[in-house]
């Protein structure tokens, strides 16, 4: 009748806000390993659309073009890359480290067909721009009304 119910400390309503408060307190500190983000690098992306194209932009400052990897499989656009820290081996010489480093990978489901062989990608001033022309069937068609 009386089953043993495991007592889960982390499920109690009191423990939760305490953890949140801790994170909230540390959120603004740029300390590695503290706060809600653990110094992982997730670059910001913008996606926009024109009549004939899908345009993806990403904030990737200070990267080498050869370290950026873009793939398209089944309408899923994946942008991968790695940003390396300068003088990584001499961390003790750093006074301040606010910039983010490491690998990232982000995938976007485009939701429509694009012309895979005429995708254009460019990198300028730290912004990656990928222009994906829409396949003919996805372009808006104008239908004329006859009298």
């Amino acid at each position, binding site marked *: 009748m009386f089953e043993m119910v495991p007592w889960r400390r982390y499920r109690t309503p009191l423990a939760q806000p305490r953890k949140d408060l801790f994170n909230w307190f540390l959120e603004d500190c740029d300390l590695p390993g503290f706060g809600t*983000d653990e110094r992982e690098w997730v670059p910001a*992306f*913008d996606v926009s659309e024109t009549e004939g194209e899908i345009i993806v*932009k990403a904030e990737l400052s*200070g990267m080498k073009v050869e370290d950026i990897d873009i793939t398209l499989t089944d309408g899923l656009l994946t942008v991968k890359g790695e940003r390396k820290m300068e003088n990584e081996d001499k961390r003790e*010489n750093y*006074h301040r480290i606010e910039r983010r480093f490491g690998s990232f990978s982000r995938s976007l489901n485009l939701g429509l067909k694009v012309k895979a062989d005429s995708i254009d990608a460019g990198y300028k001033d730290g912004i990656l721009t990928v222009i994906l022309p829409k396949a003919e069937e996805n372009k808006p068609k104008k239908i004329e009304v006859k009298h």
Partner: protein
Amino acid sequence: MSDKELQVRDKRELESAGERTKPGPVFIPAVDIFESEAEITLLADMPGVASENVSIDLHENQLTVSGEVEQLTSEKEEYLLQEFETGIFHRQFTLSDRIDQSSITATVKDGVLRLVLPKAEKVKPRKIEVKAG
């Protein structure tokens, strides 16, 4: 902590940077600073800022760095997802006398500003040789 989805870290917005003639948000660029024997190097992330749009101003030990991002989108574009705002990057640093202020160099490459602040002669470590007597 770990069950949270990865989140894009927003650019930190500057509360007040004086009155500006141009409207738009002002961001604090993320900065790395490291030191070597001869100089201090400052790296600032300013994605979207072209080298001609960066201004560096030195006034009474106050080094001001600012950069403007040109509008990235054309009118024809319609946003499906917007994670980054564009605006002005602005940050100030106070330099000490240990910096040779006349020979500061700045370069911008791939959206990263690199400021090299050479140390003044008097603070550079000097090797003193011991003479055999």
